[in-house]
């Protein structure tokens, strides 16, 4: 049923692609189909309906293995969980786009590709053979690339497009090799056959590393992340939301599918590798985010952080699984999956809000914004909820999943390997550090964009966004609150997934009193967001009532104290007495980024008597570029330069090359044939 729905989705894309005026039809249709697919996936997970048998299409690679007749699609429990994520994100983005996309200058560059992108993401998740998977994966990459290039007139976008295309190809290459190893000499590309084949330990390990590279580059693991903060912000905002919220989750799905389902029993060091990659990604991602001034780039870097957290959960789950601690593995995997869902919810909201800001003010530069809460009263509320949620603050959903992750870390001293024993506490510290940085990052984003006074004329004249966009933001923010207050339902919803992958599940939460969550029954560590939210509300009301009863109720307005600069002088001067975004983060930059990013502030102050303004010069370099990519590009350049000589040889030398190649091949046959 779901396969059919998704195929219709692709069909809609194909049919309506040629109608530039069909904004309502395309986005409305996408919305409806995403909701249908969402309901189908929800029904399967929540009601425990057995999955439909695999649908085998009559198209595919001919003559490949026993079942190589055609592409296979089917929705098992893992696929259903990710279909929920993909289709909530897809539905919300379509709803947002119903209003937002009317500002698109060249809608024909977005409209035909958008449904194809949605359909491809759905199809990747439900593909049940490697050929179908890789085909849809490439369609997904290309469709998102086309969407990134929708605004191709800007030079930065074109550069982002090139880097994205390169990284996507490299990632797919890794996945291609990975599936080649999985299929083995028999060459059966169906997932069911791959699961059944026993394989050597080193092949399984190679498969895991390749999957980490392939899926990790799409998800944004450091140092494979360099394309992400360039490409995600360049796309239209609803597409950015999909790329950050959903496409990275599809990559996470690919990693889970391969590492947990297809690669066979894990070795203990798999977990270590994934943990280190995840922990590093989490902290570096959010540090990058703190250094940036462009709202959408900040959000893209924060996506990298959250992907890191998800991979920390997956790494823990792999380590627990390798040591046979299935209940703990189920907890860690549940935390990762729940965080994937949560990240889709709040990150999409934030990207929608960034889109609304960009449309309202024409800029994404934090240094030009300020005071938007007065002009965009309604959209400021869902943005605030999403900012609180992504900063991992209770009682919202970001904290619920991080709490589960920390509970899983608390179970890990039982892991026997010394490498893990040393690494896991450090990873725990990195997770805590990234959560604290995320709070600073989103105080900065929200506080500077929405609060205070406008730092530019555009921000002072901003208008509220349209109703469609607003409703999409409100729906997602409401889901953030719901998932935060009732995490037990989400945990129970994910239980069949962990059961299918690990044979264990987090104990049922539904029957616990006060809707609390107790992930490990023997430890009784509990968290009850509903009750705590209730207490906070009651306490706040008690405080307010007491003040009403006993206190003075008069409230007056007066200018704030700004050492005299606030009221006098031209507006441009009084407005910059506020903190700037880079000024806000200067202490953190000085303490943390000095070493990692070689960040350096250089202030040139005017001498006494001079009239020109003081200048602050801020320099920092990206270690991923300077340490990894720049040498790599240099090496490739050098190699290309060397090979270039081969173009200008004489005919004798070419003939000599051909002859030597022939001799070498004959020699090969003689020796091993």
């Amino acid at each position, binding site marked *: 049923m779901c396969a059919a729905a998704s195929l219709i989705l692709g069909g809609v894309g194909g049919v309506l692609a040629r109608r530039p005026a069909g904004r309502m039809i395309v986005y409305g249709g996408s919305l409806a189909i995403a909701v249908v697919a969402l309901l189908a996936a929800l029904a399967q997970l929540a009601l425990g309906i057995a999955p439909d048998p695999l649908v085998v299409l009559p198209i595919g690679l001919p003559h490949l293995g026993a079942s190589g007749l055609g592409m296979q699609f089917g929705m098992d429990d893992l696929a259903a969980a990710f279909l929920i994520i993909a289709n909530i994100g897809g539905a919300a983005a379509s709803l947002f786009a119903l209003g937002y996309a009317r500002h698109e200058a060249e809608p024909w560059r977005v409209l035909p590709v958008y449904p194809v992108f949605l359909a491809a993401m759905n199809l990747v998740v439900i593909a049940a053979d490697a050929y179908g998977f890789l085909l849809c994966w490439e369609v997904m990459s290309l469709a998102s690339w086309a969407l990134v290039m929708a605004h191709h007139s800007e030079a930065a976008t074109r550069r982002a497009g090139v880097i994205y295309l390169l990284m996507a190809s490299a990632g797919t290459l890794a996945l291609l090799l990975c599936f080649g190893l999985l299929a083995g000499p028999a060459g059966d590309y169906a997932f069911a056959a791959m699961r059944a084949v026993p394989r050597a330990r080193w092949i399984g390990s190679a498969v895991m590393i390749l999957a980490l590279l392939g899926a990790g580059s799409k998800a944004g693991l450091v140092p494979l992340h360099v394309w992400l903060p360039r490409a995600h912000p360049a796309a239209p905002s609803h597409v950015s939301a999909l790329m950050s919220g959903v496409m990275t989750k599809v990559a996470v799905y690919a990693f889970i599918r391969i590492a947990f389902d297809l690669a066979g029993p894990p070795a203990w060091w798999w977990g270590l590798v994934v943990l280190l990659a995840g922990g590093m990604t989490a902290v570096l991602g959010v540090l990058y985010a703190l250094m940036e001034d462009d709202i959408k780039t900040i959000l893209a870097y924060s996506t990298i952080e959250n992907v890191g957290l998800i991979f920390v959960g997956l790494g823990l789950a792999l380590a627990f699984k390798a040591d046979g601690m299935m209940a703990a593995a189920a907890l860690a995997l549940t935390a990762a999956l729940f965080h994937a869902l949560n990240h889709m919810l709040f990150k999409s909201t934030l990207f929608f809000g960034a889109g609304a800001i960009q449309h309202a003010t024409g800029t994404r530069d934090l240094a030009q914004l300020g005071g938007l809460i007065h002009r965009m009263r309604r959209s400021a509320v869902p943005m605030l909820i999403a900012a609180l949620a992504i900063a991992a*603050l*209770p009682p919202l959903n970001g904290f619920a999943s991080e709490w589960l992750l920390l509970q899983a*870390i608390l179970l890990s001293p039982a892991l026997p390997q010394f490498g893990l024993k040393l690494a896991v506490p450090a990873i725990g510290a990195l997770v805590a550090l990234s959560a604290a940085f995320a709070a600073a990052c989103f105080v900065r984003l929200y506080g500077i964009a929405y609060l*205070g006074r406008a730092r530019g004329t555009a921000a002072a004249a901003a208008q509220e966004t349209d109703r469609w966009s607003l409703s999409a933001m409100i729906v997602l923010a409401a889901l953030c609150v719901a998932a935060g207050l009732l995490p037990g339902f989400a945990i129970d919803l994910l239980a069949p997934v962990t059961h299918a992958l690990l044979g264990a599940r987090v104990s049922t939460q539904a029957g616990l009193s006060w809707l609390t969550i107790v992930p490990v029954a023997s430890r009784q560590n509990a968290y009850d967001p509903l009750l705590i939210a209730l207490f906070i509300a009651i306490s706040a009301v008690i405080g307010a009532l007491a003040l009403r009863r006993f206190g*003075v109720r008069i409230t007056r307005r007066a200018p704030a104290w*700004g050492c005299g600069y606030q009221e006098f002088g031209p507006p441009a001067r009084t407005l910059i007495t506020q903190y700037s975004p880079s000024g806000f983060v200067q*202490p953190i930059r000085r303490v943390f980024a000095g070493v990692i990013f070689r960040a350096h502030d250089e202030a040139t102050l005017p001498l006494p008597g001079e009239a020109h303004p003081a200048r602050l010069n801020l320099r920092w370099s990206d270690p991923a570029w300077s340490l990894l990519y720049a040498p790599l590009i240099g090496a490739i350049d050098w190699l290309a330069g060397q090979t270039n000589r081969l173009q200008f040889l004489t005919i004798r030398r070419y003939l000599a090359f051909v002859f030597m190649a022939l001799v070498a091949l004959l020699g090969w046959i003689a020796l091993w044939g």
Partner: protein
Amino acid sequence: MGLITRLALQLAQMALMLALAPLLAGFVRVLKARLQRRSGPPLLQIYRDLAKLIGKDAIIATDASWIFSTAPYLMFAITWVSASLVPSFATDLLFSWSGDLIVIVALLGTARFCQMLAALDIGTAFGGLGASREAMFASLAEPAMLMIVFTVALVAGSSQLSAIATFMHEGTQGLRLSLALGLVALVIVALAETGRFPVDNPATHLELTMVHEAMVLEYSGRHLALIELAHALKLILYLSLIVCIFAPVAIAAPGAGPAALALGLFAYLVKLAAGGVLLALFETAIAKMRVFRVPNFIGAALMLGLLGTLLLFVSASL
């Protein structure tokens, strides 16, 4: 024990925290003044200040939004709720299970988030200055606190505060190196989080040194009263946390009779007073640090916490 009694005890805990918080802050203030050979304010001055503030008009900055006037209520409510989750005189109160130590730490993070937003809301340099420094301190103090939580939770086998207090009360753990590291780290974090010396000066209004005061500079009237109360609650929260984890002497066990409860309450008051004396002594003996020395100070707490956790991962007996 009947539900009514348990509910009454829980409410008593909430009321106790609220009532004692200004007293503790005032006590430390008086002691500090005496140690510095000043006569100092009366012990109950903070209550009088609060009453005075409640009776005054609240003035809101021209450019402030609803966040500025809502934040004090939220900060007060969140700090009060999290303070009530810390066992003071008795463990296993009716709702003590609704959040573990990680939740308490994160709740304080929510309160801080509200405060930083409110500071940015007024649109002056001071608000930004305070929020920016607070963000830097918090980005080290929060991970340090979580590492301490890990240390304590791994020793006690639970991150639930009541369970930790009961475990420590039984004394089966003996002397542990990791707990000692955790205690030092917790004291450092507590000093930083409550804005005491050497991290912040609760009495300063000098812009070079302000952190907390810079954030609340524009508050007045009832809003300021709520913030002052929340600040006092934070102090009593951290002190209660330290004594509940590291000195749960005579804390009343679940289902204890009135005598045990009275003993627990008395012991709690004595412990608070002792903590207050130590704090006043420490604050008198030490000078305030430069802002950029503070990361080293809190970073030491982070490293100690990490070391404590690491020791427990390597060997369960350390």
